[in-house]
Every structure is written in C-alpha cells, then in structure tokens.
C-alpha cells in the first residue's frame, strides 16, 4: 500500500460516495479524481510523506487497506432517527476541566520518581559528529543517565542534516539539572558545507549535499494544447508567486512521558494519533505493539505536526529504560521551531493567458518549494480553477533545515495563494470583477463544488458591490480594499475506527474508542452522536478516548476524525439500544422493533405514553452491561467540501502596515455535528491563515543557516488586537453525511487578505508574508 496511486484507488474503492444519488456520485468522483490526476509525482510524494494521506500512519494504511466495507444498513443511517442533538450547539463537555486547569496534558503528567530529559542538538545545519563525550554530563549534580542518539561509526548516521538534529540526550532528577547536563555534553563536529538558500540550490550554486542532487524534478503534468491556448489569449501574464516556510507552533510542545514495567511501556504522548504513536514506539523500539500503551487525554495543539512520533519519543523511552525510572521529555520552544515540522515553502513561475471574454486559455507553470533536508514540497496548481490547456512542472528543493510535516491543509494554502493572486491579475487584464471572473473559470456546481453559489451569496453579504477597482484613490495614507478566495478539502471518513458502547443497569452509558482530541472537541462529539442515537442528553454519556486500550481509530488529521469516528459511534449506540429494547419489550408487551428511544425514554413508536424512563428501562439490563461494537461503514459520510472567503483590509501606505478589518467565511462540511465547535474551527482557520498572510515567518540566517527567530517574540503571531471581525456562514448539508472541517477554513484567508491589500494599494505583492517592508518596497517600485 506504499504506492500513492494504490492508496488513492483504495480510498476511491472505500466507497465514500455510496448511498447517494448517481448524480452526486458522478460529480464527486469527477471532482475527487481530478486533483489526483493533476498531481505531479513530487506532489504525491509530498502528500505521502506529509501524510495528507490524511494523517494516517503506515499501519493505519494497512488497516485501512480493506477496500470494500459493507454499506451501512439503512436502519443505522443518520436519517433513521430525528436529530435531536446532532446539529445543535453543545458546549464542550471538557470545557470545565480545561478552564480550571484540571485537564492533564502530557506536559502536566507527573509520575513517582520521574526524571526530566533534555536532547543535545546540532547547532549546525550540516556537520559530521566526530565524537560525543558524556563524561561532563555525568558529573552534573542530579545526573541519572545519557545516550548518544546516532551511530558515529556509520558515516551516514554520523552526519547531522539540520540545526536541531538530535545528537545525544540526558536525564536528571530535575529539569534544571537536565539542562545543565545537556550543556555539559561535549560534541565535536566537523562542520560541512550546507545548502541554505532555495535560490542558490536552484541556480546550482549551492554545495552538493543531497543525493543524487539538491533539486529533484518531478513529473510534468500536461493537458490540452498549450500553444493553442496562448494563441487564443487576448492577454498574458508572466509572474512569480511564492509563499514562505512557517512552523506549527503548537502551544503544548511535542513530548512524552515514558514509564516501563518490565518489558511493557506506558507512554503519555502529546499526539494526534494514539494508535500511530503506539505503532511508531513499538517498531522504533523493536517490541510488540501489545507491549505499548499510549495515553493522550488532552493535547495542546498539533496542526499536523503530531501525527507522527518524533525521535524524542523513542529517546524518552530509551532513557527511561536505561534509568529504570519514568522520564519526561518535553521539547522547548526553540526545538519546536527547529525539528517538529513546518509548512514547506512554495513558488510558481506562471505564464498564463486569458481570452477577451475572461476564460483562462493557457496555464504554464514551473513550480518549486522546499520541505527541508530531503522532504518534498508539493502543492496543487492551478488550485481548483479549470484550465483546459495547461502544463505544470514541479521541483522539490532540498536545503539543510528541519523536515516539513503536514500543516493544516497541506499544500492548499500555498496552491491557493499562488493561484488566486494570478486570478485577480488576469481579471484586471480583461477588466472583469474578480467574483465574476472566478465564476467563469470554476468547475461545474455540485454538492462538493458550491463556489459559484457561495461567491454570489458572499458578495451580497460582504458588500462587494462597494469594492472599487484596483487601487484605492481616496486621499490620505490609509487605503482600503477587498479580496476574495476559495478553497476545497477532502476530509471524509474511513475505517477502521471501532467504537465500543456500554449501557449499565444504572442507566450509565460509556462510549469508548481509540480516538483523541486535538482540540476540535472530539470528546463532545462522541457524547453528542451517542446521545442523539439513544434519545439522551450528551451529559448522560461518558465519552472515553485518548488511550490505545480503547481500540483502533485513526489519527486526528486530514479533517477525517469526525467522519471516521461518528458512524461507528452511532452504529454501536444503536446496536446497544436494540439489545436494550429486547429486554424492555416484554414489559411493554410489544416487539422490540416497535420501540424507540426519545427524550430520555424508551417507548412504543408513535405512543410516547406507553414506555419507560431511561433509568427504568436500564434496570432490566441486569448485572452484565449491554455492550456493542461497531466500525465505520460507508454511507454515513462523504468527502470534499467547498468554501469561499472575503476579506477587507486597510493599509497604511506610509508605514506599510496592514490591518485586516473584516473576514466573511462561507464553508460547508456536510452534516454539521456540533454547530458551536464547527464554527470555532472556522474562526481558528481564518486566524491561522491571517498569521500566514501577515505575521509568522521562519527566518534563516543567510550565512549560517540557523533560524534567527526560534521563539515567540520574533516569530510573530496575531494577538487579539490584530484579529478582524469574522463572520461565519456554516452550510449544513445533512444529506451528505459527516465530512470534516478542521482544514478548509484555513486555506483561502491569506490569499483573500493579499488581494484585499492589492485592491487597496494598487500594486501586487506576489509573495507572503505581507510585511510592512515588502509592501513599502513594492509601492516604491511602482512609484
């Protein structure tokens, strides 16, 4: 299943679109297959490596390999019961634990006799580790144990490939002593030449570091007749667009607490996938999966960077084994920036042609990007819009920095920016309104391709008719503008994600599964879907997640968690209810299938008075709780969403400072499970993309290749004063089933903001971030 196209086929075969009308299926298949066809091998590798793979570990893929799960029995489908809880606004059940500090994150876990660990890392972007001397560390008060992370005799593993690459690690009785001990480790490096800049690597001016080359050309994608397309063009453009590298900056750093009991390991991991973390630990340590238990009750953000277990997880487990004591290893903020992943850069040199009536006739792009020391940097291009005649050649550029990891909608924010800026430049060429120009070049409208409708609705709601042509001509230094951009994302569900339901004779309900909460409100979703099926309130359900002992479920990535887990939860709950109805039916003198669960009662369908309260009904269960298990099944979920965002910005052309004043986000995600938390995902996506547009930037020293802002005071992120008014219009498409919403809202904001800035100042900044310096520079070039 390592082959991307095999996996794609498996996904296709998994029957996401089963259970809907042939029309819907047709349109979704067309839509779903198109981006894949357009992908270069490099892109596919990027997705593979990045696990856009929708966040699945290798073993997830193996597990998910069964291509054809049986379609869901209609009696379990969403429409089989009235939605009394699903689709409402339910406050997070774990909100009180989080606001009171009672919620225990991995960072908060303390074990008896626990030691603290620290990793010794390379300060150089490329070097050979000649020797490591741990003796200094051993003399530090409180020192307990240490290890060298790499085999120095092996010429391959002795080489560090980026600043922050792991060299050694220590454990001591306190964190302060661990820091002292790490400082006392003496490492001798032979500094090697490094590839620091993408431009010099592309120009062949960089040292040859990577095998076979610093630049890896991907397949060229072609369609139609490019020459004819340019022939048909009334206007052409020839521009280069680019986006920068950003890092995830999870508020809780990556890390683990490891505790051994003989040959069995319990690991508290800040992870987006307890099951994949378990598999990574087992394979990395060479022990059976059954000997590893991973727990993650609360985790402080992941955004894709915690789908895989980093080297620190294995280091922590090894130190704990060596020391014979529990060890905590949480990375610090600098390490977070350097080694726990980033969003790859992107660039596209685009030549495009447009006909006089506003159809894009030709698109010819050379694209590239860097995902660091050996990782790909793919992104979709052109993004969403249809161009019949097109060519796209992509190159991955390797430089000596930490490796990329999937970051909230991998590839899409880059593809969006690089495409949408071009869209407005082309629209201006033919003097068309950007909304109308987009509508002309979009794929046909479909349930998973609603951009036309959303563009029209949004334009009306946002006051788009008040938008002036490119360049605000009002006097004064403050210029105002509007921009628009669109997005798509797959999401969707798949198994295995096995939920286990228990109903006790006291009426208690447990829903248990090996999922985890990345911050989207998964615990609440588990309780909501269960309560909805059983006619209860969410507070009557005990959701249990975040532990590999609770069974197999996927990682929280790719906006797949809601869609992957909710079918199994619902089916398990309904199966348990069937068993309960069997016990209740004799008392009511009816057949079990005549009973329904509504409003905290089990009663005869259409005769609410003939029934029992939930508590009375459950008294008939007896000492052995009712249990039922169920996996994801096709028919209750689908894939691919669409969204549109409008932004308004003010730019001070004297200072170059941008202030985004308003954002309108229209977004669908299939069946909305929790309106409240789904909206929160939209707010978060918009704000994340605002950071991408204006503030955050991984800045490397041009000479040393070291990151100059590995902290949170110079790596800028928006504060409350920077956040605009955000209006969310969530489209509930209940008939499509659950899809997922974590990623799509973070795709288009940056492009919409950049276009609002362009509309305001009358010149185009073609690279992110939109720093004041860059805006002033672009303005001065115009003058």
């Amino acid at each position, binding site marked *: 299943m390592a082959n991307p196209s095999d996996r794609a086929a498996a996904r296709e075969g998994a029957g996401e679109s089963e259970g809907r009308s042939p029309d819907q299926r047709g349109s979704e298949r067309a839509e779903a297959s198109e981006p894949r066809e357009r992908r270069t091998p490099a892109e596919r590798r990027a997705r593979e490596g990045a696990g856009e793979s929708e966040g699945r570990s290798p073993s997830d893929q193996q597990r998910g390999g069964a291509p054809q799960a049986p379609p869901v029995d209609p009696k379990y489908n969403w429409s089989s019961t009235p939605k009394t809880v699903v689709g409402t606004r339910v*406050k*997070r059940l774990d*909100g*009180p634990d*989080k*606001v*009171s*500090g*009672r*919620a225990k*994150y991995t*960072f*908060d876990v*303390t074990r008896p006799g626990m030691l*603290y660990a620290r990793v010794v890392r390379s300060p150089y972007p490329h070097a050979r580790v000649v020797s490591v001397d741990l003796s200094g560390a051993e003399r530090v008060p409180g020192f307990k144990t240490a290890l060298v992370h790499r085999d120095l005799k092996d010429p391959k593993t002795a080489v560090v490939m980026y600043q922050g690459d792991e060299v050694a690690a220590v454990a001591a009785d*306190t964190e*302060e002593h661990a820091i002292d001990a790490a400082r006392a480790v003496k490492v001798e490096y032979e500094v090697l030449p490094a590839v620091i800049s993408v431009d010099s690597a592309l120009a062949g001016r960089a040292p040859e570091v990577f095998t076979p080359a610093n630049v890896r050309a991907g397949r060229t994608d072609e369609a139609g007749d490019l020459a004819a397309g340019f022939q048909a063009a009334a206007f052409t453009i020839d521009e280069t667009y680019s986006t920068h590298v950003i890092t*995830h*900056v*999870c*508020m*809780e750093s990556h890390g683990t607490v490891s505790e051994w009991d003989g040959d069995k390991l319990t690991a508290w991991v800040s992870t987006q996938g307890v099951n994949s973390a378990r598999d990574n630990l087992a394979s990395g340590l060479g022990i059976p999966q059954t000997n590893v238990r991973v727990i993650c009750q*609360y985790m*402080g*953000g992941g*955004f894709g960077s915690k789908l895989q277990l980093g080297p620190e997880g294995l280091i922590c487990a090894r130190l704990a084994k060596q020391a014979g004591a529990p060890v905590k290893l949480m990375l*610090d*903020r600098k390490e977070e920036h350097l080694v726990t992943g980033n969003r790859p850069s992107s660039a596209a040199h685009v030549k495009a042609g447009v006909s006089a009536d506003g159809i894009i006739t030709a698109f010819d792009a050379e694209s590239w990007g860097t995902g660091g020391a050996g990782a790909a940097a793919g992104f979709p291009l052109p993004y969403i819009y249809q161009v019949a005649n097109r060519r796209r050649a992509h190159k991955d550029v390797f430089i000596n920095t930490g490796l990329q990891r999937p970051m909230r909608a991998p590839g899409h924010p880059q593809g969006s920016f690089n495409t949408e800026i071009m869209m407005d430049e082309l629209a201006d060429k033919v003097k068309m309104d950007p909304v109308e120009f987009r509508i002309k070049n979009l794929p046909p409208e479909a349930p998973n391709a609603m951009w036309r409708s959303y563009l029209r609705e949004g334009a009306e709601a946002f006051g788009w008719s008040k938008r002036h042509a490119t360049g605000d001509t009002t006097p004064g230094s403050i210029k105002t503008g509007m921009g628009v951009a669109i997005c798509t994302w797959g999401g969707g569900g798949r198994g295995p994600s096995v939920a286990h339901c228990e109903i006790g004779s006291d009426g208690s309900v447990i829903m248990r599964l090996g999922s985890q909460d*990345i*911050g989207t409100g998964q615990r609440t979703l588990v309780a909501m879907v269960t309560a909805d099926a059983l006619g209860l309130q969410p507070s009557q359900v005990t959701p249990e997640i975040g532990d590999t002992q609770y069974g197999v479920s996927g990682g929280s990535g790719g906006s797949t968690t809601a869609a992957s887990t909710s079918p199994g939860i619902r089916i398990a709950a309904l199966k348990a209810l069937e068993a309960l109805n069997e016990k209740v039916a004799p008392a009511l003198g009816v057949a079990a299938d005549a009973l329904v669960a509504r409003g905290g009662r089990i009663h005869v369908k259409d005769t609410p008075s003939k029934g029992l309260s939930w508590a009375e009904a459950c008294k008939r269960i007896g000492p052995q709780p009712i249990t039922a298990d169920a996996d994801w099944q096709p028919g209750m979920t689908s894939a691919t969403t669409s969204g549109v965002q409008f932004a308004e910005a*003010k730019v001070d052309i004297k*200072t170059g*400072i*941008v*202030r985004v*004043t*308003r954002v309108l986000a229209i977004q669908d995600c299939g069946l909305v499970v929790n309106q*409240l938390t789904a909206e*929160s995902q939209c*707010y*978060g996506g*918009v*704000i994340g993309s605002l950071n991408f547009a*204006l503030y955050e930037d991984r800045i490397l020293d041009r000479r040393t290749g070291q990151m100059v802002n590995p*902290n*949170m*005071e110079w790596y*800028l*992120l*928006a*504060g*409350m*004063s920077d*956040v*605009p*008014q*955000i209006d969310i219009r969530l489209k509930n498409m209940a008939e499509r089933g659950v899809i997922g919403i974590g990623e799509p809202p973070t795709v288009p904001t940056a492009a919409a903001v950049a276009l609002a800035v362009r509309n305001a100042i009358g010149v185009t900044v073609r690279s992110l971030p939109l*720093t*004041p*310096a860059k805006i002033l520079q672009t303005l001065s070039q115009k003058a």
Partner: protein
Amino acid sequence: MPRRKDEPGFSRRSFLKTVGAGGVAAGVFAKAPGVDAQGVNAVGPGPVPVTLNVNGKLLRLEIEPRVTLLDALRMRADLTGNKRGCDRGACGACTMIVDGRTVYACSTLAIDVQGKKIRTVDGLASGATLHPVQQAFCDKDALMCGFCTPGFVMASVGLLEKHPNATPEQIKKGLDGNICRCGTFSRVFEAVASVSGRGARTSAGELDADATPLNEGVQRG
C-alpha cells in the same frame, strides 16, 4: 519584583515596539534579586528554602534560586493548571496573578515572589463552581485545545478585577499579551465582554476597526 504584564506601556506588542525602537524600557525588567548598590549578595546555586503563598495556602519548597514561579508550582507542587508555552514571557500561557497584578510566571523567579499573594488558575474555581470568567469561556466556546486557556482566563480575571466594566478596547489591549494558536480570540473576546457586563454582540474587530491607529499593529523587528 515580578515581571508585570499589565504595566502601562507593557503589552506584548508595545514591548516588541520598545525593543524594536532600540532598547528595553526602564522598569520593564526589575533589578535582579540580591543585587544592590553594595554589590552582589548571592544565594544559591544550591537549593534554598522558599515559601510561597499560593491560592491562599503556604507552600514550602527547597529549590534553586534560578527556578521560576511557573516551574516551582508545576514541577514541585503539581499545580499544573498554568502552562509553559514559550518560557520567555511572550505567549502568556503561564499568566498568574501576583498581588493583584498579572505576571508571566515563566519569567518570574519563585524566590522573588515570597510574601506575595500568588493566584493560579488551579485555585480560581470554588469547588465545582467555576469563576464567571471560566464559565463564560465554556459558554462561548472560547477554547479549543485549551493549552493557552488557563493563561487567558487568568489574564481576563486580572483585567476585569482592575476594570470591571472593561471596554472592548481595554479587553483587547489587556489580552494582547496572550497567544492562542488554535485561533479562539474572537470567542475569548465575546466571553470576556459578556462578563464585563457590557454584553457581547460584536466580535473582536468590529468596534474599533477605525479607532485603533494602524501603527499599533504588530511590528517587525
């Protein structure tokens, strides 16, 4: 003296501005402990007895003088409610209230706050009853992963104790020293505004889109 968050002119952004302008303003960093005109009166480096008044209880610790308030409480007293995000006084996840003022506990030495009243998020609720600010965060979904939330809650409590009828502008300025990566700001604003008794019909940017001078935006170094 602890490092204060709520000194006039010391928000995250104004701090950056100050540094960007070429130096750290006097009064932002207090004198180092034990240093006076006569010279260094050193304590440590080994553990020294430190007594802290935390959430109304006396906590006696033997810690090295270099241990921060945050680490002392998190790693020596299992008071893990307040979080460590950046460890450099930039993200605000560690925000505590010391003698009525909000401080970055990651950048405050424990030894330096003896004799002061320290409040952490762990002690904010009375039993099962949440503080109104905590309840408002839950009601408005002003949290996602929740890791920054304790700091936001404490910063909000500190702000509202000082300004019970905080204006939207005061709320935004008062919470600018806290960072949330999930992007909860809009709803944090709503939550705090709802407690300030001013209602919360608007989201974070609406009221002052034009009121705030543009040069108050985030500055680049």
